[in-house]
């Protein structure tokens, strides 16, 4: 117990700073969210046209209501699990300010993580909850009954936390690349497109043909967006749930171990110029 309260006391200021920084940049942050929702509406209308043109009520076992929930939910999950640690870490490594983190009696990844959690508080209250309520109202209007399941939602929360941590450590590993490369801008963009393709952000992985789908579902990217979204929609059986959640946990552990290894190695060869 004492350990936990020590941890909270130690990292609380980081979270607080994260909330303050999110407040300071709220305009650009809300604009970004608005831009993202435009994209959701484009997808919504495309799917609507698809359903109109096919004349059938399901598309590969997804109804129009399913599709709408998927489009908005996968974007929300993208928001919740997105991490800026690649760019922030790379900046700190380049200008040497990473040393300010290292001389503090805190763990480097926890200090970045708890700062970002502050950011997420803002995202959850200003974006996630309103959009989720909107989605549920839509679902109720279309289906005529409450499709929201509290059990699914709780499992979803667990899954999102896992996928955020997973995405955080993946981003951290990319950030550490800055120790070895002069400029990681290109890699950062590349990482973004890889994630958006393989995570199911644009196309539900269930739509890919047999073997491709199986491969994609095993990759760590699927655990970032696709898995939590499908959990929210209640698309998994109990057995599948155990399987996908353990897969998330597995990839999380893998990424934590890799990031610790790189960090340990980079620390030894780190040389900061000037001061």
């Amino acid at each position, binding site marked *: 117990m004492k350990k936990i309260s020590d941890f909270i006391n130690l990292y609380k200021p980081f979270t607080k700073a994260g909330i303050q920084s999110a407040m300071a940049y709220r*305009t*650009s942050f809300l604009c970004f969210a608005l831009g993202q929702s435009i994209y959701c509406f*484009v997808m919504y209308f495309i799917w609507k046209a*698809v359903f109109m043109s*096919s004349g059938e009520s399901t598309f590969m076992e997804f109804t129009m209501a399913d599709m709408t929930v998927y489009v908005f939910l996968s974007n929300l999950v993208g928001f919740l699990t997105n991490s800026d640690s690649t760019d922030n870490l790379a900046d700190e490594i380049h200008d040497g300010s990473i040393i300010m983190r290292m001389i503090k009696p805190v763990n480097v990844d926890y200090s970045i993580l708890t700062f970002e959690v502050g950011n997420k508080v803002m995202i959850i209250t200003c974006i996630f909850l309103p959009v989720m309520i909107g989605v549920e109202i839509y679902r109720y209007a279309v289906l005529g009954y409450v499709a929201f399941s509290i059990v699914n939602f709780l499992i979803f929360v667990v899954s999102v936390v896992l996928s955020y941590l997973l995405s955080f450590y993946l981003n951290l590993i990319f950030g550490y690349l800055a120790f070895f490369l002069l400029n990681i801008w*290109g890699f950062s963009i590349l990482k973004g497109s890889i994630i958006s*393709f393989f995570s199911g952000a644009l196309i539900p992985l269930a739509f890919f043909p047999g073997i491709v789908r199986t491969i994609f579902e095993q990759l760590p990217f699927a655990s970032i967006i696709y898995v939590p979204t499908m959990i929210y929609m209640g698309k998994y059986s109990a057995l599948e749930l155990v399987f996908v959640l353990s897969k998330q946990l597995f990839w999380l552990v893998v990424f934590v171990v890799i990031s610790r290894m790189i960090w340990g190695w980079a620390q030894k060869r780190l040389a900061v110029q000037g001061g």
Partner: protein
Amino acid sequence: MRFLRLYKTFIIQHIKKLMEYRIDFLTGAMSFFINQVTNIVFIGIIFSQIPNLDGYLFYEIIFIYGFSLVPKGIDHLLTDNLWKVAWFIVRKGDFDKYLTRPISPLVHCIIESIQFDALGELLTGIILIVIASVKLSIKFTFVNVVLMIIAMIFGAVIFTAIKIIGAAIAFWIKQSGSILQIFYGISDFARYPATIYNSVIRNVVTYIIPFAFTAYYPASYILRGNNPLFCIGGVIVAAMVLLGISLIVWHKGLNAYESAGS
């Protein structure tokens, strides 16, 4: 002449910078390529289940998609610096340097950089148009081709004008990148037939932020022979009106500009 000489100097400077960051360029181009593949796979998956989308065949959608990349690519190639104005040049007070030079600040901003990644966009667009045209056996006449090229150029002007307006907002509020992002995001609607949207969105992308003229309308003229006066003439009118507005906004912004930073 003086302008061309200047432009050449700027481009040479830019190529030097590019050579320094080769890996960035390659990874950037690669990620762009993955994005395009994603979108085409998406369209492919949709068409694996349905014969047409709102009456449009697979290759017609590909044609419109490819068409949308060309004006966007031209604009991206030539005027990418406007994003920097919106995001940080004004905020950091770096805009002052443009004011001290003997050329128009807007022209200077634009010619300062040339974004070669955009060649990927242009190339992909042209390849998709060619493939779709062959599959649909579209008959290209001299008039068709000329009108298509005109529409692409003026389509690019629509993008540029919107970027000028978005960047100019930074003169009042210091940082307008996120606002510009929203304007720009609306161009996503242009990649698909405007007929699939509801009337509100259709009117917005036709008459207010006329991105539908950068791809869907001119493409529908080539594909279906829809009214050329509206489909091609509309591009020119929309581009000129928007360019006029953007120049007014830019100059008003310049007058309101107070240097930031120290």
